[in-house]
Protein backbone atom coordinates (compact mmCIF):
# COMPACT_ATOMS: atom_id res chain seq x y z
CA UNK A 1 0.00 0.00 0.00
CA UNK A 2 2.74 2.44 0.91
CA UNK A 3 4.14 2.07 -2.56
CA UNK A 4 0.97 3.52 -3.96
CA UNK A 5 0.97 6.69 -1.91
CA UNK A 6 3.35 8.64 -4.10
CA UNK A 7 1.67 7.77 -7.39
CA UNK A 8 -1.66 8.76 -5.93
CA UNK A 9 -0.31 12.07 -4.74
CA UNK A 10 0.40 12.93 -8.36
CA UNK A 11 -3.19 13.93 -8.85
CA UNK A 12 -3.13 16.55 -6.11
CA UNK A 13 -1.83 19.49 -8.19
CA UNK A 14 -4.67 19.03 -10.66
CA UNK A 15 -7.24 18.64 -7.90
CA UNK A 16 -6.02 21.71 -6.00
CA UNK A 17 -5.90 23.86 -9.14
CA UNK A 18 -9.41 22.93 -10.17
CA UNK A 19 -10.69 23.29 -6.61
CA UNK A 20 -9.34 26.83 -6.33
CA UNK A 21 -10.57 27.67 -9.82
CA UNK A 22 -14.04 26.48 -8.90
CA UNK A 23 -14.41 27.64 -5.30
CA UNK A 24 -12.82 31.09 -5.21
CA UNK A 25 -14.74 32.81 -8.03
CA UNK A 26 -17.94 30.94 -7.26
CA UNK A 27 -17.64 31.79 -3.57
CA UNK A 28 -17.26 35.46 -4.47
CA UNK A 29 -20.28 35.28 -6.77
CA UNK A 30 -22.30 33.76 -3.96
CA UNK A 31 -21.12 36.47 -1.54
CA UNK A 32 -21.83 39.32 -3.98
CA UNK A 33 -25.27 37.90 -4.67
CA UNK A 34 -26.26 38.53 -1.03
CA UNK A 35 -25.00 42.10 -0.69
CA UNK A 36 -25.81 45.44 -2.23
CA UNK A 37 -22.94 46.06 -4.62
CA UNK A 38 -22.93 48.52 -7.51
CA UNK A 39 -19.98 49.97 -9.40
CA UNK A 40 -21.24 53.56 -9.57
CA UNK A 41 -23.57 55.25 -7.17
CA UNK A 42 -23.49 58.94 -6.31
CA UNK A 43 -26.34 58.58 -3.87
CA UNK A 44 -25.03 55.60 -1.92
CA UNK A 45 -21.23 55.55 -2.32
CA UNK A 46 -20.96 52.93 0.45
CA UNK A 47 -22.48 50.37 -1.93
CA UNK A 48 -19.56 50.62 -4.32
CA UNK A 49 -17.27 48.52 -2.13
CA UNK A 50 -18.23 44.97 -1.23
CA UNK A 51 -18.85 44.60 2.47
CA UNK A 52 -20.97 42.51 4.81
CA UNK A 53 -22.54 45.68 6.17
CA UNK A 54 -24.38 46.01 2.85
CA UNK A 55 -26.10 42.69 3.43
CA UNK A 56 -29.25 42.34 1.35
CA UNK A 57 -30.27 38.74 1.96
CA UNK A 58 -32.27 37.40 -0.91
CA UNK A 59 -33.03 40.92 -2.13
CA UNK A 60 -30.93 40.56 -5.29
CA UNK A 61 -32.62 37.30 -6.15
CA UNK A 62 -35.99 38.93 -5.65
CA UNK A 63 -34.95 41.86 -7.80
CA UNK A 64 -33.76 39.55 -10.58
CA UNK A 65 -36.86 37.37 -10.46
CA UNK A 66 -39.03 40.47 -10.80
CA UNK A 67 -36.99 41.83 -13.73
CA UNK A 68 -38.68 41.41 -17.09
CA UNK A 69 -35.27 41.03 -18.70
CA UNK A 70 -34.48 37.97 -16.62
CA UNK A 71 -37.52 36.00 -17.72
CA UNK A 72 -37.02 37.06 -21.29
CA UNK A 73 -33.38 35.93 -21.10
CA UNK A 74 -34.34 32.56 -19.59
CA UNK A 75 -37.02 32.05 -22.19
CA UNK A 76 -34.72 33.12 -25.00
CA UNK A 77 -31.88 30.90 -23.73
CA UNK A 78 -34.18 27.91 -23.71
CA UNK A 79 -35.64 28.82 -27.10
CA UNK A 80 -32.18 29.12 -28.66
CA UNK A 81 -30.84 25.95 -27.04
CA UNK A 82 -34.00 23.95 -27.82
CA UNK A 83 -34.07 24.97 -31.48
CA UNK A 84 -30.40 24.21 -31.96
CA UNK A 85 -30.81 20.80 -30.34
CA UNK A 86 -33.81 19.85 -32.42
CA UNK A 87 -32.17 20.74 -35.72
CA UNK A 88 -28.70 19.38 -34.96
CA UNK A 89 -30.00 16.01 -33.74
CA UNK A 90 -32.45 15.43 -36.61
CA UNK A 91 -30.07 16.73 -39.26
CA UNK A 92 -27.14 14.99 -37.60
CA UNK A 93 -28.94 11.64 -37.68
CA UNK A 94 -29.92 12.05 -41.32
CA UNK A 95 -26.42 13.04 -42.38
CA UNK A 96 -24.74 10.32 -40.35
CA UNK A 97 -26.93 7.73 -42.08
CA UNK A 98 -26.12 9.35 -45.40
CA UNK A 99 -22.35 9.31 -44.94
CA UNK A 100 -22.21 5.93 -43.22
CA UNK A 101 -21.85 3.93 -46.42
CA UNK A 102 -19.09 3.53 -48.91
CA UNK A 103 -19.02 5.74 -51.97
CA UNK A 104 -16.37 7.54 -53.99
CA UNK A 105 -14.71 10.40 -52.10
CA UNK A 106 -16.19 9.53 -48.73
CA UNK A 107 -13.06 10.73 -46.94
CA UNK A 108 -13.29 14.14 -48.57
CA UNK A 109 -17.00 14.40 -47.81
CA UNK A 110 -16.27 13.74 -44.14
CA UNK A 111 -13.54 16.36 -44.06
CA UNK A 112 -15.81 18.95 -45.70
CA UNK A 113 -18.64 18.12 -43.31
CA UNK A 114 -16.61 18.35 -40.12
CA UNK A 115 -14.81 21.60 -41.02
CA UNK A 116 -17.39 24.07 -39.63
CA UNK A 117 -16.84 22.68 -36.15
CA UNK A 118 -13.29 24.02 -36.04
CA UNK A 119 -14.10 27.58 -37.08
CA UNK A 120 -13.69 29.90 -34.13
CA UNK A 121 -17.06 31.17 -32.87
CA UNK A 122 -16.14 34.81 -33.39
CA UNK A 123 -15.32 34.23 -37.06
CA UNK A 124 -18.43 32.11 -37.48
CA UNK A 125 -20.65 34.93 -36.22
CA UNK A 126 -18.93 37.72 -38.16
CA UNK A 127 -18.95 35.65 -41.34
CA UNK A 128 -22.64 34.74 -41.15
CA UNK A 129 -24.12 38.03 -40.01
CA UNK A 130 -22.17 40.13 -42.50
CA UNK A 131 -21.35 38.15 -45.58
CA UNK A 132 -24.22 35.70 -45.67
CA UNK A 133 -27.21 37.17 -43.85
CA UNK A 134 -26.80 40.90 -44.46
CA UNK A 135 -29.99 42.10 -46.18
CA UNK A 136 -28.15 44.38 -48.61
CA UNK A 137 -24.55 43.32 -49.06
CA UNK A 138 -24.69 39.70 -47.94
CA UNK A 139 -25.67 36.70 -50.06
CA UNK A 140 -29.14 36.99 -48.54
CA UNK A 141 -29.64 40.47 -50.01
CA UNK A 142 -27.96 39.61 -53.30
CA UNK A 143 -30.11 36.50 -53.77
CA UNK A 144 -33.37 38.33 -53.07
CA UNK A 145 -32.34 41.17 -55.37
CA UNK A 146 -31.53 38.58 -58.05
CA UNK A 147 -35.02 37.06 -57.77
CA UNK A 148 -36.59 40.50 -58.01
CA UNK A 149 -34.49 41.16 -61.09
CA UNK A 150 -35.78 37.99 -62.75
CA UNK A 151 -39.39 38.80 -61.88
CA UNK A 152 -38.94 42.30 -63.29
CA UNK A 153 -37.60 40.79 -66.50
CA UNK A 154 -40.53 38.40 -66.77
CA UNK A 155 -42.98 41.29 -66.55
CA UNK A 156 -42.01 42.38 -70.04
CA UNK A 157 -43.28 39.14 -71.58
CA UNK A 158 -46.68 39.19 -73.25
CA UNK A 159 -49.50 37.39 -71.38
CA UNK A 160 -47.17 35.91 -68.74
CA UNK A 161 -46.03 39.41 -67.85
CA UNK A 162 -49.52 40.30 -66.67
CA UNK A 163 -49.28 37.46 -64.17
CA UNK A 164 -45.84 38.44 -62.91
CA UNK A 165 -46.73 42.08 -62.56
CA UNK A 166 -49.12 40.97 -59.80
CA UNK A 167 -46.09 39.71 -57.82
CA UNK A 168 -44.77 42.01 -55.16
CA UNK A 169 -41.12 42.97 -54.83
CA UNK A 170 -39.47 40.61 -52.36
CA UNK A 171 -37.95 42.13 -49.24
CA UNK A 172 -34.86 40.45 -47.79
CA UNK A 173 -35.20 39.56 -44.11
CA UNK A 174 -32.96 41.60 -41.85
CA UNK A 175 -31.32 39.49 -39.19
CA UNK A 176 -30.44 42.37 -36.91
CA UNK A 177 -33.80 42.78 -35.17
CA UNK A 178 -34.47 41.24 -31.75
CA UNK A 179 -36.37 38.17 -32.89
CA UNK A 180 -34.66 37.56 -36.23
CA UNK A 181 -31.20 37.85 -34.71
CA UNK A 182 -32.10 34.94 -32.44
CA UNK A 183 -32.80 32.99 -35.64
CA UNK A 184 -29.43 34.10 -37.00
CA UNK A 185 -27.70 32.82 -33.87
CA UNK A 186 -29.59 29.53 -34.13
CA UNK A 187 -28.57 29.20 -37.77
CA UNK A 188 -24.87 29.82 -37.25
CA UNK A 189 -24.58 27.60 -34.17
CA UNK A 190 -26.51 24.83 -35.93
CA UNK A 191 -24.11 25.08 -38.84
CA UNK A 192 -21.20 24.72 -36.44
CA UNK A 193 -22.58 21.92 -34.27
CA UNK A 194 -24.37 19.67 -36.75
CA UNK A 195 -20.96 18.32 -37.80
CA UNK A 196 -20.32 17.43 -34.17
CA UNK A 197 -23.58 15.44 -34.00
CA UNK A 198 -22.77 13.76 -37.32
CA UNK A 199 -19.32 12.78 -36.10
CA UNK A 200 -20.61 11.24 -32.88
CA UNK A 201 -23.48 9.40 -34.57
CA UNK A 202 -21.18 8.14 -37.31
CA UNK A 203 -18.71 6.78 -34.78
CA UNK A 204 -21.54 5.03 -33.03
CA UNK A 205 -23.10 3.67 -36.22
CA UNK A 206 -19.85 1.93 -37.04
CA UNK A 207 -20.24 -0.22 -33.95
CA UNK A 208 -23.76 -1.26 -34.90
CA UNK A 209 -24.35 -5.00 -35.10
CA UNK A 210 -24.40 -5.76 -38.82
CA UNK A 211 -25.56 -9.37 -38.52
CA UNK A 212 -28.65 -8.24 -36.62
CA UNK A 213 -29.45 -5.87 -39.44
CA UNK A 214 -28.98 -8.56 -42.05
CA UNK A 215 -31.28 -10.87 -40.15
CA UNK A 216 -33.89 -8.14 -40.18
CA UNK A 217 -33.49 -7.74 -43.93
CA UNK A 218 -33.96 -11.47 -44.43
CA UNK A 219 -37.09 -11.28 -42.29
CA UNK A 220 -38.39 -8.68 -44.69
CA UNK A 221 -38.21 -5.67 -42.38
CA UNK A 222 -38.44 -2.37 -44.27
CA UNK A 223 -35.62 0.15 -44.17
CA UNK A 224 -37.72 2.46 -42.02
CA UNK A 225 -38.58 -0.20 -39.47
CA UNK A 226 -34.93 -1.25 -39.32
CA UNK A 227 -34.03 2.37 -38.64
CA UNK A 228 -36.65 2.81 -35.93
CA UNK A 229 -36.29 -0.57 -34.23
CA UNK A 230 -32.56 -1.22 -34.50
CA UNK A 231 -30.62 1.94 -35.27
CA UNK A 232 -32.46 4.40 -33.03
CA UNK A 233 -32.19 2.22 -29.89
CA UNK A 234 -28.51 1.68 -30.69
CA UNK A 235 -28.05 5.45 -30.91
CA UNK A 236 -30.01 6.26 -27.75
CA UNK A 237 -26.94 6.92 -25.64
CA UNK A 238 -25.05 8.99 -28.24
CA UNK A 239 -28.19 11.06 -28.80
CA UNK A 240 -28.52 11.69 -25.06
CA UNK A 241 -24.87 12.71 -24.89
CA UNK A 242 -25.08 15.01 -27.89
CA UNK A 243 -28.16 16.66 -26.38
CA UNK A 244 -26.57 17.22 -22.99
CA UNK A 245 -23.13 18.33 -24.12
CA UNK A 246 -24.71 20.79 -26.49
CA UNK A 247 -27.11 22.05 -23.83
CA UNK A 248 -24.22 22.83 -21.54
CA UNK A 249 -22.21 24.55 -24.28
CA UNK A 250 -25.12 26.51 -25.73
CA UNK A 251 -26.51 27.70 -22.41
CA UNK A 252 -23.15 29.45 -22.13
CA UNK A 253 -23.39 30.89 -25.65
CA UNK A 254 -21.83 34.31 -25.64
CA UNK A 255 -19.63 35.41 -28.56
CA UNK A 256 -22.32 34.84 -31.17
CA UNK A 257 -24.91 36.91 -29.27
CA UNK A 258 -22.41 39.64 -28.54
CA UNK A 259 -21.46 39.90 -32.22
CA UNK A 260 -24.88 39.45 -33.82
CA UNK A 261 -27.12 41.38 -31.50
CA UNK A 262 -25.20 43.68 -29.23
CA UNK A 263 -27.80 46.00 -27.74
CA UNK A 264 -30.74 44.96 -29.92
CA UNK A 265 -32.51 43.17 -27.09
CA UNK A 266 -31.82 39.58 -28.10
CA UNK A 267 -30.15 38.23 -24.97
CA UNK A 268 -29.58 35.00 -23.13
CA UNK A 269 -28.50 34.44 -19.53
CA UNK A 270 -24.73 34.93 -20.04
CA UNK A 271 -25.41 38.10 -22.01
CA UNK A 272 -27.76 39.43 -19.33
CA UNK A 273 -25.09 38.76 -16.71
CA UNK A 274 -22.67 40.74 -18.85
CA UNK A 275 -25.16 43.63 -18.97
CA UNK A 276 -25.74 43.63 -15.22
CA UNK A 277 -21.97 43.49 -14.69
CA UNK A 278 -21.59 46.99 -16.12
CA UNK A 279 -23.09 48.30 -12.87
CA UNK A 280 -25.26 46.10 -10.68
CA UNK A 281 -22.91 43.39 -9.45
CA UNK A 282 -25.42 42.07 -6.92
CA UNK A 283 -27.96 41.36 -9.65
CA UNK A 284 -25.29 39.95 -11.97
CA UNK A 285 -24.19 37.54 -9.24
CA UNK A 286 -27.74 36.43 -8.41
CA UNK A 287 -28.35 35.79 -12.13
CA UNK A 288 -25.08 33.89 -12.22
CA UNK A 289 -26.23 31.64 -9.40
CA UNK A 290 -29.42 30.91 -11.33
CA UNK A 291 -27.33 30.02 -14.38
CA UNK A 292 -25.23 27.68 -12.25
CA UNK A 293 -28.33 25.95 -10.94
CA UNK A 294 -29.72 25.53 -14.46
CA UNK A 295 -26.42 24.10 -15.74
CA UNK A 296 -26.14 21.77 -12.76
CA UNK A 297 -29.52 20.21 -13.40
CA UNK A 298 -28.38 19.31 -16.90
CA UNK A 299 -24.91 18.29 -15.77
CA UNK A 300 -26.40 15.82 -13.31
CA UNK A 301 -28.06 13.90 -16.13
CA UNK A 302 -24.94 13.97 -18.29
CA UNK A 303 -22.66 12.85 -15.49
CA UNK A 304 -24.91 9.92 -14.72
CA UNK A 305 -24.63 8.65 -18.28
CA UNK A 306 -20.90 9.25 -18.49
CA UNK A 307 -20.41 7.59 -15.12
CA UNK A 308 -22.13 4.43 -16.30
CA UNK A 309 -19.68 3.98 -19.14
CA UNK A 310 -16.65 5.13 -17.18
CA UNK A 311 -15.43 2.09 -15.32
CA UNK A 312 -16.15 -0.66 -17.84
Amino acid at each position, binding site marked *: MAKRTLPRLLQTPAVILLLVWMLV*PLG*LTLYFSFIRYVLNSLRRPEWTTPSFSNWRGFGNYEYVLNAKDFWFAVQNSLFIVGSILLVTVVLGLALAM*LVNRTFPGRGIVRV*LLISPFFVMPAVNAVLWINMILDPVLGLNGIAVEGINEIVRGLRDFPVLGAFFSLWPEFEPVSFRATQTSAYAVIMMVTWQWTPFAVLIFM*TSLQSEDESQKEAAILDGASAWSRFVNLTIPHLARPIAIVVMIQSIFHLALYAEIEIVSRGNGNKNLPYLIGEFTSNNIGA*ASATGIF*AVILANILALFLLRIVGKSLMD
Partner: protein
Amino acid sequence: MATIDQTSKFGKIAWPVLAWTVALIFFFPIFWMVFTSFKTDADAVKPEHLFFFTPTLENYANMTENYDYWRFAINSVITASFATLFALVVGVPAAYAMAFNPSRHTKDILMWMLSTKMLPAAAVLYPMTFLTKNFLNIFDTHFLVILVLCLINLPIVIWMLFTYFKEIPKEIIEAGKMDGVSTWGEIKDILVPLAWGGMASTALLCFIFCWNEAYWTVRLTTTEAATLSKLIEGNRAPEGLFFGRLSAVSTAAVGPIVVLGWFCQKQLVRGLTFGAVK
Protein backbone atom coordinates in the same frame (compact mmCIF):
# COMPACT_ATOMS: atom_id res chain seq x y z
CA MET B 1 -21.47 -13.74 -44.04
CA ALA B 2 -21.60 -11.66 -47.16
CA THR B 3 -23.28 -8.30 -46.81
CA ILE B 4 -26.66 -8.13 -48.41
CA ASP B 5 -26.64 -5.36 -50.92
CA GLN B 6 -30.08 -3.84 -51.09
CA THR B 7 -29.14 -0.65 -52.82
CA SER B 8 -30.90 -0.19 -56.12
CA LYS B 9 -29.18 1.15 -59.21
CA PHE B 10 -30.81 4.52 -58.61
CA GLY B 11 -29.63 4.54 -55.01
CA LYS B 12 -26.06 3.81 -56.06
CA ILE B 13 -25.93 7.15 -57.83
CA ALA B 14 -28.39 9.15 -55.75
CA TRP B 15 -26.81 8.55 -52.32
CA PRO B 16 -23.29 9.69 -53.19
CA VAL B 17 -24.65 12.70 -55.09
CA LEU B 18 -26.79 13.66 -52.11
CA ALA B 19 -23.90 13.18 -49.69
CA TRP B 20 -21.60 15.30 -51.81
CA THR B 21 -24.23 18.02 -52.18
CA VAL B 22 -24.82 18.24 -48.45
CA ALA B 23 -21.09 18.29 -47.72
CA LEU B 24 -20.55 21.10 -50.21
CA ILE B 25 -23.42 23.11 -48.72
CA PHE B 26 -21.90 22.76 -45.27
CA PHE B 27 -18.50 23.76 -46.51
CA PHE B 28 -19.83 26.64 -48.57
CA PRO B 29 -19.59 29.41 -45.91
CA ILE B 30 -15.91 28.56 -45.37
CA PHE B 31 -15.32 28.44 -49.12
CA TRP B 32 -17.10 31.78 -49.49
CA MET B 33 -14.90 33.37 -46.83
CA VAL B 34 -11.71 32.17 -48.55
CA PHE B 35 -13.10 33.14 -51.97
CA THR B 36 -14.03 36.67 -50.82
CA SER B 37 -10.62 37.13 -49.26
CA PHE B 38 -9.17 37.36 -52.78
CA LYS B 39 -11.51 40.20 -53.78
CA THR B 40 -10.83 43.88 -53.20
CA ASP B 41 -13.14 45.52 -50.67
CA ALA B 42 -14.92 47.26 -53.54
CA ASP B 43 -15.44 44.08 -55.57
CA ALA B 44 -16.63 42.15 -52.54
CA VAL B 45 -19.88 44.10 -52.28
CA LYS B 46 -20.68 44.35 -55.99
CA PRO B 47 -23.18 41.76 -57.20
CA GLU B 48 -21.68 41.87 -60.70
CA HIS B 49 -18.39 40.68 -59.23
CA LEU B 50 -20.03 37.91 -57.21
CA PHE B 51 -18.20 35.16 -59.07
CA PHE B 52 -16.02 36.93 -61.62
CA PHE B 53 -13.31 39.27 -60.50
CA THR B 54 -9.59 39.82 -60.69
CA PRO B 55 -8.11 37.94 -57.74
CA THR B 56 -5.77 39.92 -55.55
CA LEU B 57 -3.55 39.20 -52.59
CA GLU B 58 -3.61 42.75 -51.29
CA ASN B 59 -5.94 41.85 -48.39
CA TYR B 60 -3.34 39.44 -47.10
CA ALA B 61 -0.49 41.82 -47.80
CA ASN B 62 -2.25 44.58 -45.84
CA MET B 63 -3.34 42.43 -42.93
CA THR B 64 -0.71 43.86 -40.59
CA GLU B 65 -1.51 47.40 -41.58
CA ASN B 66 -5.31 46.98 -41.41
CA TYR B 67 -5.66 44.84 -38.34
CA ASP B 68 -2.25 44.43 -36.73
CA TYR B 69 -2.90 40.74 -37.37
CA TRP B 70 0.43 39.34 -36.26
CA ARG B 71 0.27 40.86 -32.80
CA PHE B 72 -3.00 39.03 -32.13
CA ALA B 73 -1.86 35.87 -33.91
CA ILE B 74 1.33 35.71 -31.85
CA ASN B 75 -0.72 36.17 -28.68
CA SER B 76 -2.98 33.32 -29.77
CA VAL B 77 -0.01 31.07 -30.48
CA ILE B 78 1.71 31.91 -27.19
CA THR B 79 -1.36 31.52 -24.99
CA ALA B 80 -2.70 28.37 -26.68
CA SER B 81 0.73 26.67 -26.70
CA PHE B 82 1.61 27.38 -23.10
CA ALA B 83 -1.89 26.58 -21.86
CA THR B 84 -1.67 23.22 -23.64
CA LEU B 85 1.81 22.58 -22.28
CA PHE B 86 0.79 23.33 -18.69
CA ALA B 87 -2.41 21.31 -19.03
CA LEU B 88 -0.28 18.32 -20.05
CA VAL B 89 2.30 18.89 -17.32
CA VAL B 90 -0.45 18.86 -14.69
CA GLY B 91 -2.71 16.42 -16.51
CA VAL B 92 -0.32 13.56 -17.32
CA PRO B 93 0.66 12.80 -13.69
CA ALA B 94 -2.96 13.13 -12.60
CA ALA B 95 -4.27 10.81 -15.31
CA TYR B 96 -1.41 8.39 -14.57
CA ALA B 97 -2.34 8.30 -10.91
CA MET B 98 -5.99 7.68 -11.66
CA ALA B 99 -5.51 5.12 -14.43
CA PHE B 100 -2.88 2.93 -12.77
CA ASN B 101 -3.33 3.56 -9.07
CA PRO B 102 -7.06 4.06 -8.70
CA SER B 103 -8.62 4.40 -5.30
CA ARG B 104 -12.21 4.28 -4.14
CA HIS B 105 -12.53 7.96 -4.90
CA THR B 106 -11.04 8.01 -8.39
CA LYS B 107 -14.40 7.84 -10.13
CA ASP B 108 -15.83 10.63 -7.99
CA ILE B 109 -12.79 12.81 -8.56
CA LEU B 110 -13.06 12.34 -12.32
CA MET B 111 -16.76 13.17 -12.28
CA TRP B 112 -16.16 16.21 -10.13
CA MET B 113 -13.43 17.45 -12.50
CA LEU B 114 -15.85 17.13 -15.36
CA SER B 115 -18.49 19.06 -13.45
CA THR B 116 -16.14 22.05 -13.10
CA LYS B 117 -16.16 22.23 -16.89
CA MET B 118 -19.93 22.62 -16.79
CA LEU B 119 -19.99 25.73 -14.64
CA PRO B 120 -21.23 28.61 -16.77
CA ALA B 121 -18.32 31.00 -17.20
CA ALA B 122 -20.60 34.03 -17.12
CA ALA B 123 -21.54 33.25 -13.52
CA VAL B 124 -18.03 34.07 -12.35
CA LEU B 125 -17.31 36.88 -14.80
CA TYR B 126 -17.27 39.72 -12.29
CA PRO B 127 -15.34 37.89 -9.56
CA MET B 128 -12.68 37.01 -12.13
CA THR B 129 -12.42 40.61 -13.32
CA PHE B 130 -12.45 41.85 -9.73
CA LEU B 131 -9.75 39.46 -8.55
CA THR B 132 -7.43 39.85 -11.49
CA LYS B 133 -7.80 43.62 -11.78
CA ASN B 134 -7.92 44.77 -8.17
CA PHE B 135 -5.97 42.14 -6.26
CA LEU B 136 -3.63 40.15 -8.43
CA ASN B 137 -2.94 42.82 -11.03
CA ILE B 138 -2.77 40.28 -13.81
CA PHE B 139 -5.71 41.52 -15.91
CA ASP B 140 -4.88 41.55 -19.63
CA THR B 141 -1.62 39.62 -19.24
CA HIS B 142 -0.48 36.53 -21.12
CA PHE B 143 -0.09 34.82 -17.78
CA LEU B 144 -3.78 35.21 -16.97
CA VAL B 145 -4.99 34.03 -20.37
CA ILE B 146 -2.67 31.02 -20.22
CA LEU B 147 -3.83 30.19 -16.70
CA VAL B 148 -7.53 30.42 -17.55
CA LEU B 149 -7.23 28.51 -20.83
CA CYS B 150 -5.26 25.81 -19.03
CA LEU B 151 -7.82 25.50 -16.26
CA ILE B 152 -10.92 25.39 -18.45
CA ASN B 153 -9.38 22.65 -20.59
CA LEU B 154 -7.72 20.67 -17.81
CA PRO B 155 -10.77 18.46 -17.14
CA ILE B 156 -11.01 17.45 -20.80
CA VAL B 157 -7.26 16.86 -21.00
CA ILE B 158 -7.27 14.63 -17.91
CA TRP B 159 -10.30 12.72 -19.15
CA MET B 160 -8.83 12.10 -22.56
CA LEU B 161 -5.47 11.04 -21.16
CA PHE B 162 -7.26 8.81 -18.66
CA THR B 163 -9.14 6.97 -21.44
CA TYR B 164 -5.87 6.52 -23.39
CA PHE B 165 -3.94 5.32 -20.35
CA LYS B 166 -6.67 2.84 -19.49
CA GLU B 167 -5.98 1.10 -22.79
CA ILE B 168 -2.41 0.31 -21.75
CA PRO B 169 -2.23 -3.11 -20.11
CA LYS B 170 -1.62 -2.70 -16.40
CA GLU B 171 0.89 -5.56 -16.46
CA ILE B 172 3.39 -3.47 -18.38
CA ILE B 173 3.41 -0.83 -15.68
CA GLU B 174 3.40 -3.49 -12.96
CA ALA B 175 6.40 -5.17 -14.55
CA GLY B 176 8.27 -1.90 -14.34
CA LYS B 177 7.43 -1.70 -10.65
CA MET B 178 8.85 -5.21 -10.07
CA ASP B 179 12.08 -4.13 -11.67
CA GLY B 180 12.30 -1.35 -9.12
CA VAL B 181 11.66 1.52 -11.49
CA SER B 182 10.78 4.76 -9.72
CA THR B 183 7.46 6.49 -10.28
CA TRP B 184 9.14 9.16 -12.32
CA GLY B 185 10.88 6.48 -14.39
CA GLU B 186 7.58 4.70 -14.89
CA ILE B 187 6.04 7.82 -16.40
CA LYS B 188 9.08 8.86 -18.39
CA ASP B 189 10.34 5.53 -19.72
CA ILE B 190 7.23 3.36 -19.91
CA LEU B 191 4.06 5.45 -20.02
CA VAL B 192 5.10 8.34 -22.26
CA PRO B 193 6.60 6.19 -25.06
CA LEU B 194 3.55 3.91 -24.98
CA ALA B 195 0.90 6.61 -24.90
CA TRP B 196 2.70 9.02 -27.19
CA GLY B 197 -0.05 9.04 -29.83
CA GLY B 198 -2.82 9.62 -27.34
CA MET B 199 -0.92 12.42 -25.68
CA ALA B 200 -0.24 14.07 -29.03
CA SER B 201 -3.91 14.04 -30.00
CA THR B 202 -4.92 15.30 -26.57
CA ALA B 203 -2.49 18.19 -26.97
CA LEU B 204 -3.76 18.92 -30.47
CA LEU B 205 -7.38 19.04 -29.35
CA CYS B 206 -6.55 21.15 -26.31
CA PHE B 207 -4.68 23.57 -28.56
CA ILE B 208 -7.69 23.87 -30.87
CA PHE B 209 -10.06 24.56 -27.97
CA CYS B 210 -7.70 27.19 -26.58
CA TRP B 211 -7.37 28.85 -29.97
CA ASN B 212 -11.14 29.08 -30.47
CA GLU B 213 -12.05 30.12 -26.94
CA ALA B 214 -14.12 33.29 -27.08
CA TYR B 215 -15.44 34.15 -23.64
CA TRP B 216 -12.51 34.66 -21.31
CA THR B 217 -10.13 35.76 -24.04
CA VAL B 218 -12.58 38.54 -24.89
CA ARG B 219 -13.59 39.55 -21.37
CA LEU B 220 -10.24 39.31 -19.59
CA THR B 221 -8.10 41.16 -22.10
CA THR B 222 -7.98 44.64 -23.58
CA THR B 223 -4.85 45.09 -25.70
CA GLU B 224 -1.73 43.45 -24.27
CA ALA B 225 -2.83 39.81 -24.33
CA ALA B 226 -5.71 40.07 -26.81
CA THR B 227 -6.04 37.00 -29.04
CA LEU B 228 -7.53 36.48 -32.49
CA SER B 229 -11.00 35.95 -31.01
CA LYS B 230 -10.79 39.44 -29.56
CA LEU B 231 -9.56 40.87 -32.85
CA ILE B 232 -12.46 39.42 -34.83
CA GLU B 233 -14.98 40.31 -32.13
CA GLY B 234 -13.75 43.89 -32.27
CA ASN B 235 -14.51 44.04 -35.99
CA ARG B 236 -17.97 42.59 -35.73
CA ALA B 237 -19.65 45.35 -37.72
CA PRO B 238 -17.53 46.43 -40.66
CA GLU B 239 -20.60 48.15 -42.21
CA GLY B 240 -20.07 46.23 -45.40
CA LEU B 241 -17.14 48.25 -46.59
CA PHE B 242 -14.43 45.81 -45.64
CA PHE B 243 -15.69 42.36 -46.61
CA GLY B 244 -12.51 41.60 -48.53
CA ARG B 245 -10.03 42.43 -45.81
CA LEU B 246 -12.26 40.97 -43.10
CA SER B 247 -12.43 37.69 -45.03
CA ALA B 248 -8.67 37.62 -45.36
CA VAL B 249 -8.03 38.15 -41.66
CA SER B 250 -10.75 35.59 -40.78
CA THR B 251 -9.24 33.05 -43.15
CA ALA B 252 -5.84 33.60 -41.58
CA ALA B 253 -7.36 33.18 -38.12
CA VAL B 254 -9.19 29.90 -38.73
CA GLY B 255 -7.31 28.31 -41.64
CA PRO B 256 -4.52 26.57 -39.72
CA ILE B 257 -6.90 25.33 -37.05
CA VAL B 258 -9.44 23.90 -39.49
CA VAL B 259 -6.62 21.98 -41.17
CA LEU B 260 -5.34 20.74 -37.81
CA GLY B 261 -8.89 19.71 -37.00
CA TRP B 262 -9.06 17.45 -40.05
CA PHE B 263 -6.36 15.33 -38.46
CA CYS B 264 -8.09 14.81 -35.16
CA GLN B 265 -11.70 13.95 -36.00
CA LYS B 266 -11.57 10.64 -34.17
CA GLN B 267 -9.95 12.12 -31.08
CA LEU B 268 -12.61 14.80 -31.03
CA VAL B 269 -15.26 12.18 -30.33
CA ARG B 270 -13.27 10.84 -27.42
CA GLY B 271 -12.44 14.27 -26.07
CA LEU B 272 -15.95 15.64 -26.16
CA THR B 273 -17.91 12.59 -25.08
CA PHE B 274 -15.49 11.59 -22.32
CA GLY B 275 -15.14 8.10 -23.69
CA ALA B 276 -18.86 7.43 -23.46
CA VAL B 277 -19.29 6.94 -27.22
CA LYS B 278 -17.16 4.30 -28.87
